[in-house]
């Protein structure tokens, strides 16, 4: 479903973030991307949401070269991909319901759809009782689950999680990962970028190790965090 072909990415400051990456990810996989900071994990994810385009090579989703998308197609691509970040990226002046609803509103969804879907997705992530709470009234784990709810609202085919446990303690981290595994079981492809060794080892799925913009190891099954 996702394929990177000889991808090179060089940032404006001449930093080579990706150095000839070849990678294929099948639909329904759970992939852990590991490696030290600056290894190119986030760059790999940003290419997929078309925030950047590669300097060389191709990034394809369902056989379509993402570089060929027009400006008006990019929002449609992003609706197919849910994203989760270390810093949650929630709107502090909106409550849980409004934060998730916002994702539907800016895509022009009708009011009835918003009112029906948002409570459902909040109960999937276990926040049914926090529907009216604001981010500052929630724990770190709850905030991240809210972010996941928002990522799920478009029923995406892919979830990209960039260091989702970076700001969480162990218990909350495991909760979030369990939720991601549950989402994966329902058929969504999950790509988890992290340098949390315990988490990766507990997941036990495909693990791709990166270093200096290159893939140095690809353990297809029962992968472990090895650097």
């Amino acid at each position: 479903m996702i394929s990177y072909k000889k991808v090179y990415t060089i940032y404006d400051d001449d930093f080579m973030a990706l150095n000839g990456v070849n990678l294929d990810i099948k639909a329904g996989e759970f992939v852990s991307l590991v490696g030290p900071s600056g290894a190119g994990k986030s760059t790999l994810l940003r290419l997929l949401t078309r925030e950047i385009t590669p300097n060389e090579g191709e990034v394809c989703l369902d056989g379509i070269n993402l570089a060929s998308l027009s400006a008006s197609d990019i929002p449609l691509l992003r609706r197919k991909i849910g994203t989760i970040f270390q810093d949650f990226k929630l709107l502090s002046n909106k409550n849980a319901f409004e934060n998730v609803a916002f994702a539907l509103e800016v895509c022009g969804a009708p009011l009835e759809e918003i009112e029906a879907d948002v409570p459902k997705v909040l109960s999937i992530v276990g926040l049914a009782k926090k529907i009216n709470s604001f981010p500052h009234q929630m724990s770190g784990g709850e905030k991240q689950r809210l972010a996941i709810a928002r990522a799920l609202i478009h029923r995406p085919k892919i979830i990209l999680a960039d260091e989702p446990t970076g700001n969480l303690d162990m218990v909350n981290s495991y909760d979030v990962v369990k939720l991601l595994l549950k989402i994966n079981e329902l058929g969504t492809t999950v790509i988890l970028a992290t340098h949390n060794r315990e988490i990766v080892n507990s997941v036990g799925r495909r693990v791709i190790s990166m270093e200096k913009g290159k893939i140095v190891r690809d353990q297809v099954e029962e992968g472990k965090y090895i650097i």
Partner: protein
Amino acid sequence: MKESLKRIWKAGWLNFQRNSYLSFGSTGVLVLVLLLFSALMAINFLSVKIVTSIQEKIDVTAYFKVEASEDEIMRVREDLTDHSEVKNIEYISRDQALEEFRSLHAGDVLIQDSLAELDENPLQASLNIKATDPSEYASIVTFLEGNKFRTLIDKINFYENEQVISRVQGISGGIQNWGVILTMAMALIAVLVTFNTIRLTIYNQKQEIEIMRLVGGSNWHIRAPYLVEGGLYGIFAAAVTLIIFYPVVYLISPKVEVLMPNANLIGYFSSNALQYIGMVLIVGVMLGVVSSAIAIRRFLKV
């Protein structure tokens, strides 16, 4: 679609409200531009009035030598009547001229005495010609100059008025040119200030914009609220301008009328109220939206 428009409008309105101090600045500068623009319209109206009132007073008068017979003068008159640009010709005989002169200076003993001293009527017969259009006077004069009875004509009185007209036109043209330049300069400043306000809004909402992009918000949904915000500055500026402009016109209109009896400023702006209000609104909204569009292009990556 309706739902989307409602959301965009609401988001734009919120931006406008939250930016209260900055909004105040942008609206203020836009108000100045619109007031200048309105003043320019008023000046234009007044100068047109001045020019037409002077033009109404212009005529060409051909004074005939004393030896010209009434018959000959009538032939000149007939020749002139054939011209389409001639609106009206008035013949003033020597006797009439003397009569008028006497009654004009009825109280002046010296003049009356001097006239009594004279054996003969010293005044000349004349033809007073009005043209349909002020620009036609030159051709009427040329015609008179080339007429076969030219030798009977003593002098043709026209050139002095022409100078007055061209001076008034020159002054009003100058005022208008400078007015346009000033309005343009102010408009540029207004665009810059509004542009900066929108830029700050965009900067303040970096996080919201990032999230909108992240969740696949359409480009239109991300950009349009800022255009609405820019447009709102224009609408508010137009409203403030009208609130200031009409009372001011109402107050100064009688004073202007003392100087120029046929220039009814308040009447002009009341009878053309719809066009004027529409124009101020359109100019205001255009300035706001254009500034916003520049800021979006420059700072809002989608």
